């Protein structure tokens, strides 16, 4: 605490020489001048520290007692203030910094997009850039309504958007268009055919003429429910066939994987290169752009600078870290390889079928350096596929 006070008030260290220099300490005590760190200078004198405000008085008292004084050093804020007294640039610096911060805060240095699900941020940023809104754009010049119309024109998936500018950050809020569900035009004449080969287990016809029956095996493309209906009047009637055709289907899918693969082993050798990203301008903080590492991964870390209070600056410190690795062959265990393939085959089956599998069976076989896994599955699913009536299509 004492040190902090001394720093604020400022101190001066003096050396006093003369006959019986100890007398100077008595003078200081008598005059009520605070001093500290009194040290004897091998009988030649005495040095001590006094407050900056007492310096002149101390010197005067020393002169009156026929002592010679030598100022050893100054410290503290008054000394610093005296040093910078005539450096006018320092007075200009704070207002200049404030002005710079104010001017910079008028521009957009960060764009945050919320609400977009199907449209990528890059796509939206590109459209915004085309319409004059990007990093470095003056926030006050954005005409939100005009921008909204232009963006909606360019990206029809968007139904509404707005840009909220707060400081140097622009928040782009997007609402995407919700597509109406597909409707079935029941007036359009349609057949139902088999999408897959299978054994029919359930057949319910709501509209149309049944062409097959339960227990019958049908081939892919075979007509199941016809939209061509005979009429009592002799005139053929065309309807939009509707129905459910559930059938047992069988799948056999194979996948193979090499047991030996190339893996990266990191050597621990790293190199880092730093650069500053000011707006869109990059300033490299290194001279040599080359890397001494043979094979390496590059990882980029970005750190945005900000002022106290969370005000973001348009400056980013970009650190590129290069990690050296050696590519070497690694052998995978058969169990691990089989687990990878089984998981992949299950996902593939789920993508191909509409229903749940009734049974699943895996067969594993090793063929040289490869492991093959075959999935055999039996499923129950709706195989009906609604298509336009072929006869009418030909006409």
């Amino acid at each position, binding site marked *: 605490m004492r040190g902090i006070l001394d720093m604020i008030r400022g101190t001066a260290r003096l050396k006093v020489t003369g006959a019986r220099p100890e007398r100077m300490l*008595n003078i200081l005590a*008598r005059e009520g001048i605070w001093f500290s760190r009194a040290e*004897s200078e091998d009988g030649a004198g005495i040095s001590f520290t006094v407050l900056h405000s007492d310096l002149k008085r101390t010197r005067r008292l020393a002169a009156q007692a026929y002592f010679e004084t030598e100022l050893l050093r100054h410290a503290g804020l008054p000394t610093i203030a005296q040093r910078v007294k005539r450096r006018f640039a320092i007075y200009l610096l704070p207002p200049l910094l404030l002005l710079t911060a104010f001017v910079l805060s008028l521009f957009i240095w960060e764009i945050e997009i919320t609400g977009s699900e199907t449209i990528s941020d890059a796509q939206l940023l590109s459209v915004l850039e085309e319409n004059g809104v990007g990093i470095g754009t003056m926030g006050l010049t954005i005409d939100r309504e005009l921008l909204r119309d232009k963006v909606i024109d360019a990206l029809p998936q968007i139904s509404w958007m707005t840009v909220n500018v707060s400081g140097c950050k622009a928040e782009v809020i997007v609402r995407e268009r919700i597509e109406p569900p597909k409707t079935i035009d029941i007036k359009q004449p349609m057949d139902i055919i088999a999408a897959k080969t299978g054994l029919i287990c359930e057949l319910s016809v709501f509209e149309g003429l049944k062409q097959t029956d339960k227990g019958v095996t049908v081939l892919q493309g075979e007509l199941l429910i016809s939209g061509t209906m005979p009429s009592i009047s002799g005139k053929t009637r065309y309807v939009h066939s509707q129905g459910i055709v559930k059938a047992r289907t069988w799948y056999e899918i194979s996948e193979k994987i090499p047991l030996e693969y190339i893996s990266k082993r990191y050597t621990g050798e790293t190199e880092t290169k730093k650069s500053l990203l000011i707006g869109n301008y990059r300033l490299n903080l290194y001279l040599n752009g080359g890397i001494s590492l043979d094979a390496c991964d590059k990882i980029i870390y970005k750190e945005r600078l900000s002022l106290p209070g969370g005000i973001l600056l348009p400056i980013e410190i970009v650190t590129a870290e290069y990690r050296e690795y050696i590519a070497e062959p690694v052998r995978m265990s058969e169990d691990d390889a089989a687990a990878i393939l089984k998981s992949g085959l299950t996902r593939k089956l789920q993508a191909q079928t509409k229903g749940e599998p009734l049974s699943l069976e895996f067969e594993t076989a090793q063929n040289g350096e490869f492991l093959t896994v075959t999935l055999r599955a039996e499923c129950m699913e709706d195989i009906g596929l609604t298509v336009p009536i072929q006869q009418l299509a030909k006409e």
Partner: protein
Amino acid sequence: MKNHYKALGRMTQLTGLPLEYAAGLPKVELEGFTTARVECHRGVLQYSENIVELGGKGAKIRISGSGLGLKALSPALAVITGRISGAEYIFGEDGE
């Protein structure tokens, strides 16, 4: 003058009152091995790392040790810090 101090000492012993202190004689207090407080001194006579000598009524006070320094000095009180090895009164030639 020496007889005068002897008489004062005797009276102090008899009455139990701090008459020597009241008469302005120096008072030395040692706090542990690192601090010495001297009241009623008459200024610094000698000052070095190993010896600090203070004037006093009737005798000089010598504090000896190593790394000695003056922590505070006022007309009434002197606080000496450092590794203190001894404190003694010196009744010298100029002793009253």
